[in-house]
């Protein structure tokens, strides 16, 4: 009597299954095509990363970090970390992982920024998207693997799809926040001079929201990297696969090495995207100094 009654249940699981069956039966061809194109893109990016000699990439990352932060020690640190990934023997795996991260982040940004703009422009859109984004972020990441697996089979394409779903919320949210936080008087002034919706977007809202959007891209990238490791469970090669194999074979040392390689890759990616997010504050300071000289 006190047990939960059978009649007060809804068979959501069956419905979801039914929807997935329907999609597979009717749209299977579309997903096959998307899968093929996706695979070509992923392979092309991986080949490009592997085509570049390892030392060129190490030096390039070091130089980029140096330029962005302005301290050569920082650049050297980044180069050494990337080098260590190779020292552990995971260069190729790291590039595979990186290719999935790059492609999924590129798609996430391509979809996420416009979605964030729509969300900032329209309160109804925000009301609809907010709970969806909440769900996407609280859902255990493994759950995304199942539909990805069904739609695209095994391999790096479903891993990229799952990564995309998992990693896209921050860039959407922070684009929305960034645009909504643009000061009202700046918007008003631009309007007073005859700015239309697109002038406002490109001249005022996006430039002023840029720091926030860049933080969103940074977070999306980090989440993508975390998910790529989980994606190894559906056959995504790369660093995650090495960790997974090490766990299965109880090779603690090997797992530690692969794990460290992931950490180093994460730190390099985080610091560099973070430096992009902060931008170069030098310009204002320079002008400020000149001002005191002149005035």
């Amino acid at each position, binding site marked *: 009597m006190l047990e939960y009654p059978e009649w007060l249940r809804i068979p959501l699981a069956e419905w979801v299954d039914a929807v997935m069956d329907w999609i597979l039966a009717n749209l299977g061809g579309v997903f096959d095509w998307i899968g093929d194109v996706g695979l070509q893109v992923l392979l092309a990016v991986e080949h490009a990363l592997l085509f570049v000699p390892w030392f060129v990439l190490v030096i390039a990352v070091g130089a980029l970090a140096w330029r962005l932060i302005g301290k050569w020690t920082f650049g050297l640190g980044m180069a050494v970390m990337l080098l260590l990934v190779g020292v552990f023997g995971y260069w190729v795996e790291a590039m595979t992982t990186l290719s999935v991260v790059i492609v999924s982040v590129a798609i996430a940004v391509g979809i996420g920024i416009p979605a964030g703009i729509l969300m900032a422009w329209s309160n109804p859109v925000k009301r609809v998207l907010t709970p969806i984004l909440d769900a996407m972020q609280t859902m255990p990441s493994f759950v995304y693997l199942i539909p990805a697996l069904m739609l695209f089979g095994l391999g790096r394409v479903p891993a990229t799809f799952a990564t995309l779903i998992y990693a896209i919320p921050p860039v959407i949210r922070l684009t929305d926040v960034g645009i909504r936080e643009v000061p009202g008087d700046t918007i008003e002034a631009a309007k*007073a001079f*005859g700015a239309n919706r697109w002038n406002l977007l490109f001249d005022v809202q996006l430039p002023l929201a840029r720091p926030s959007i860049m933080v969103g891209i940074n977070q999306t990238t980090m989440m993508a990297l975390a998910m790529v490791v989980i994606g190894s469970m559906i056959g995504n090669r790369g660093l995650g696969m090495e960790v997974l194999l090490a766990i299965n074979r109880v090779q603690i040392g090997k797992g530690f090495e692969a794990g460290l390689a992931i950490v180093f890759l994460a730190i390099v990616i985080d610091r560099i995207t973070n430096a992009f997010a902060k931008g170069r504050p030098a310009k204002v300071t320079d*002008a400020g100094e000149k001002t005191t000289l002149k005035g």
Partner: protein
Amino acid sequence: MSRETEAGEDRLESDIATADARASGGDVAVQVEGLWKIFGRNADRVFNSDLRQLSKTELQAKTGNIVALRDVSFEVKSGELFVLMGLSGSGKSTLIRTLIRLIEPTAGTVRIDGADVLSMPPRDLLEFRRHSISMVFQNYGLLPHHTVLQNAAYGLKLRGDDKDSREERARATLETVGLSGWEEYSPAALSGGMQQRVGLARALATDPDILLMDEPFSGLDPLIRRQLQDEFIDLQDQIGKTIVFVTHDLHEALKLGDRIAIMRDGEIVQVAEPEEILSNPHDDYVRAFTQDAPVARVYSASTVMEDPDVLLYRWQGPRAAHTELARAKHDWAFMVDKKHRYLGICTHDLVDGLIEKKVKSIDENDLDRPEPVSPDVLIEDLFGLVSAESYPLPVTDDQGRLLGVIRPRAVLEALHTPEEEGSDA
């Protein structure tokens, strides 16, 4: 802008003269009739019912709607500087925004140069904002990621001028507001007063028929504010734009306005020339405003400033200084350098001491140096300073040049004869 330092009274007179000339022959540039703005839900329904007859507080208590503008009508003549003045919440900022529909009014008509602004379709409204009218904001509203030049050119960019011509025009406008050489700086590197010059340059660059200014100088500190007001008066003498100017500062309204509209609770209480407002306030509300403006609050240091009796120059030696002081029978005198910059006060004792020690020149660090004041400081603020000083107050301009001195006696006289000053005006 020139840096004239003529006395405030002269300026006031010449202003009124030009204002009269303009007001007599001018066409109507801005015509507002029966303008209403009700904020809140169902504003139209409130407007179309008897509810609109309720007072502001009654309506707010009853429906939550706020009447920001209530049946406002006025005309601004071409070339006139029309001031909207009131306390915060009186509706003046709402009113100026409805003129270009940054806020959509609930009812009424706005005609600018004959065009019915409120019935313009969106495309026409954009063109109207791009070509016919400009606005200057209290918080500047500059684009922080653009340079000063790009900011000044922004209105021109929006209306589609090509890069070369808009930059050329923006450069010229920046020059008229005194910002040559700052084109490539970020606005963040500029002081508030300079940022507002950029805002003004941006507004003038499109060569609009009408300029809207929403408390443009209110955010600035008093000295900068008065300097910009003075320069703005000179500029307006040259360009003669039609200007709607919002302020909460009576002093500013009296100084700049050809005519002043005083607003309260969304209504215009009185529209009149400055003299008329002061001498013939329409009701107690206006009177309360004007009583707030005794001579000491309206007139500045420059009106009581006098020339110094003796002036010593830095390059004169101690002996020459001694002779000068002895001739004028003074114990001390102000000293300036070659550029007439104020250095300090040179006393007889100091000069005698130097002559005794056979020193050939006067070191400016040995001088007493009472803090100088700006010519724009209000007389009321001088009161504490002059009574505390044993010497008269030196008055300097922003370059540090000595313009004159203020003797305690002059300040006291100004404070004690408000009635006579009032009837004079």
